[in-house]
């Protein structure tokens, strides 16, 4: 089985690697790039903890093979905060509204929320719920997460 050379942009840095075809993008990011903020909660595409942006779209990185991302642009949770380490408005809203507890699902929620609010700057509460319904959280009961998205959306609006 041949390994394949790939080149992609990860958090704006060009990254080259040789990978077995079966290596998932999630494992590529975690093991080859050291970007361990992308978490694996189910590895079968339900929990959303591994959500990253692929060419700007939120996708489950456990359901994409690294070879499929060849030539594409990937943004992980590590690529969302400011260069000085400051939190993005969405990250700050999660902090302000107790939108995380153990933090394991958090990167997936934040990445999903960033893409959602970029595309839907003025969402309804129902749209917010739907937007994060593909991400599972077991700690917060979603209360703080929904409050965070509401606040982040309202901040964008004003």
């Amino acid at each position, binding site marked *: *089985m*041949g390994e*394949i050379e790939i080149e992609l942009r990860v958090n704006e840095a060009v990254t080259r690697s040789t990978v*077995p*075809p*079966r290596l*998932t993008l999630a*494992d590529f990011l975690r093991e080859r790039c050291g970007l361990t903020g992308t978490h694996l909660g189910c*590895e*079968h*595409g339900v929990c*959303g903890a591994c*959500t990253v942006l*692929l060419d700007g*779209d*939120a*996708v*489950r990185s*456990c*359901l*994409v*093979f690294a*070879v*499929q991302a060849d030539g594409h642009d990937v943004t992980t949770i590590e690529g969302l905060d400011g260069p000085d380490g400051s939190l993005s408005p969405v990250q700050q809203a999660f902090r302000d509204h107790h939108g995380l507890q153990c933090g394991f699902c958090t990167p997936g929620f934040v990445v*999903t929320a960033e*893409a*959602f609010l970029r595309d839907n700057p003025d969402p309804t509460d129902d749209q917010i719920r*739907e*937007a994060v*319904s*593909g991400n599972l959280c077991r700690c917060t009961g979603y209360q703080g997460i929904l409050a965070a998205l509401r606040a982040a959306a309202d901040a964008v609006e004003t």
Partner: protein
Amino acid sequence: MKPAPFDYHAPTTAEEAVALLAELGDTAKLIAGGQSLVPMLALRLAVFEHLVDLGRVENLRGIERVGDSLRVGATTTQSAVERSEVAADAVPLLARATPLIGHVQIRNRGTVGGSLAHADAAAEYPAVALALDAEMEVLSPTGRRTVASPDFFTGLWSTAVGDDELLTAVRFPVWSGRCGFAIREFARRHGDFAIAGAAVAVELDGDDRVRRGTIALFGLGPSAQRSDPAEAALGGAAVDDVDADELGQVAVASLDSVPSDLHGSSAYRRRVGAAMVADAWRAASEEARHG
């Protein structure tokens, strides 16, 4: 939970993809968005020696209005359909079905052709294709052919697409006139595969009689299916004479292989299916009548 090893092929044309399939035989599997396939690979419920990725085949993607139909390339993502004004305008049922598929991260990768070719019994797109009499464009090593939707879905996770063939596009007829469309489904949670669902398309004549009425069911058999008895009941009927609940009952009465599992017995699925047909009929006929 890691997939077994496989070789990876990334053809850039549909012809190249089909040639690969012919060469590799049943050891190969096409992958488009991979949203159904990759979980099965990860769980090792499916193992293939070769994956042929359609992601780099450019001319398989796109949504365009061609005459009286909407042509959707097979690797067009569900999100692209969701965002498409052309699709919403030409084929409202397709547009309305799309947000019911999984979650946004799934729709961002999942493709129209992948969903149809995977032919999950509880998926939305097969029912939409059936309800609208869509046609599938299939490429084989010997040429192109067109398959009508009733001939396309052949059973549990099976279609008329051969091992060496590729679904390249779907043509959804654009219904004109006094039409209405609705899709209703019931799932344990938002975004789950439906326990039961129904897609209804209806066209009325000037006297509020049904000129054309189709009902497709999903989650209620080994694959999506049209309900012939219910459609027969609609034929030529005046809208006011159609009892929605009765229509629902008729739609499920003669089903003979309704699945049963942890989430509900066959009887329960029938009951929910009937309710979905009734709701979808109400909404579709209302739209046809009042626009």
